[in-house]
């Protein structure tokens, strides 16, 4: 019994130390003013992280929007309320699925890529050699990726939402025969700019911060071996997913608390 407690204690301290290191790295990366050449570094990272994730986001968005519209329509038509498909779809997407699914897909595609890249740089001593040349790898490698993630994810979530809503519209209106007018007007009546779009964006920004932070840190802190890279990449995806889902629960409670 005492052995179990001791192991748990050691584990907890390990995690705390990790968190501490991660926070220091985060602070050191975003501190300090950007310099002239930094913009091109940032742009390249926005390309790697954002532009290259577009395809998966758009495809997933369309499918998810279509599927949800389908399911909602089926259930709502039992109450004769098919006209509410538009508003149900929009609310679910804007408040929950848009930010969350985008974050999960992002962690899987962009997050793991960032972790692998940084981890590989660490194991081939590129980070060390940069340091020896007087260049701070936190500034040159980590910071552009942190900022790029923060910029890209909300953009991707917004695109996801729009594509999903149109995907849902295609299914509901073109295929299932719901009325286009009530699809949109029902949606417009129920969706509020701040409550739904605004708070969804906030969620997305928070997720962006967390996922990118995890991705960058796991790479930076990894063991400089072949297994180390694989382990770090897996950890990024798993940890990001768990944290995003847990955070989503808390944020939803906090933002939309009045459930009674």
């Amino acid at each position, binding site marked *: 019994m005492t052995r179990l407690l001791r192991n748990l204690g050691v584990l907890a301290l390990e995690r705390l130390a990790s968190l501490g290191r991660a926070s220091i790295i985060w602070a050191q990366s975003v501190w300090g003013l950007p310099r002239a050449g930094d913009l091109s570094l940032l*742009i390249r990272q926005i*390309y790697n992280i954002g532009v290259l994730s577009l395809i998966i986001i758009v495809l997933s968005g369309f499918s998810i929007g279509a599927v949800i519209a389908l399911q909602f329509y089926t259930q709502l038509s039992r109450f004769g309320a098919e006209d509410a498909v538009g508003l149900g779809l929009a609310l679910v997407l804007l408040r929950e699925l848009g930010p969350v699914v985008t974050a999960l897909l992002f962690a899987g595609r962009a997050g793991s890529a960032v972790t692998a890249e940084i981890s590989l740089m660490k194991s081939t001593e590129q980070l060390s050699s940069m340091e020896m040349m007087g260049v701070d790898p936190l500034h040159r490698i980590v910071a552009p990726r942190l900022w790029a993630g923060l*910029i*890209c994810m909300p*953009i991707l979530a917004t695109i996801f*939402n729009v594509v999903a809503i149109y995907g849902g519209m295609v299914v509901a209106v073109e295929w299932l025969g719901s009325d286009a007018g009530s699809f949109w007007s029902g949606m417009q009546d129920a969706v509020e700019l701040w409550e739904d779009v605004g708070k969804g964006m906030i969620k997305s920004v928070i997720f962006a911060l967390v996922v990118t932070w995890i991705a960058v840190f796991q790479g930076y802190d990894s063991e400089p071996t072949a297994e180390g890279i694989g382990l770090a990449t897996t950890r990024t995806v798993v940890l990001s997913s768990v944290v995003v889902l847990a955070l989503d629960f808390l944020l939803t409670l906090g933002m939309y608390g009045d459930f009674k």
Partner: protein
Amino acid sequence: MHMRTVEISVGVFVLAGILALVVLVVRVSGVSLSRDEGNYLVYAQFDDVAGLRKRAKVSMAGVTVGRVADIAVDTEYGLAVVAMELNSGIGALPIDTGARILTEGILGARYVGLIPGADEETLQAGDYIEDTQGALVLENLIGDLVTRLGAS
């Protein structure tokens, strides 16, 4: 990858994001861009606005003519004060227009229904609608019914 191509695609990416945001704002949440000119606020006091939410519709003869802008409470008299933003398009309403809190369907959302009056004088911005009827709360109705049945 040539830097030029990268830069262009990043620009397109960001632009797509902004466009998507605009779509969300205008098409999905229905925020009208020509908000201000001509819309005016009108107030009404109710004894019970149970279930009425901000941005609920204000309609007359089944046509949406405005939105509930704000719901406040007057603690002195224990009344709810509802501020309604009426669209400029409907012109002026008679000063004896009535306001009722109605329900969409049987269990649906609450909204404010306006019943036009006949007076020549019209409601100005900031005026109070006199003739009001609060929401029909199901529990009160049932309680009412039980009392009546009991009495007979």
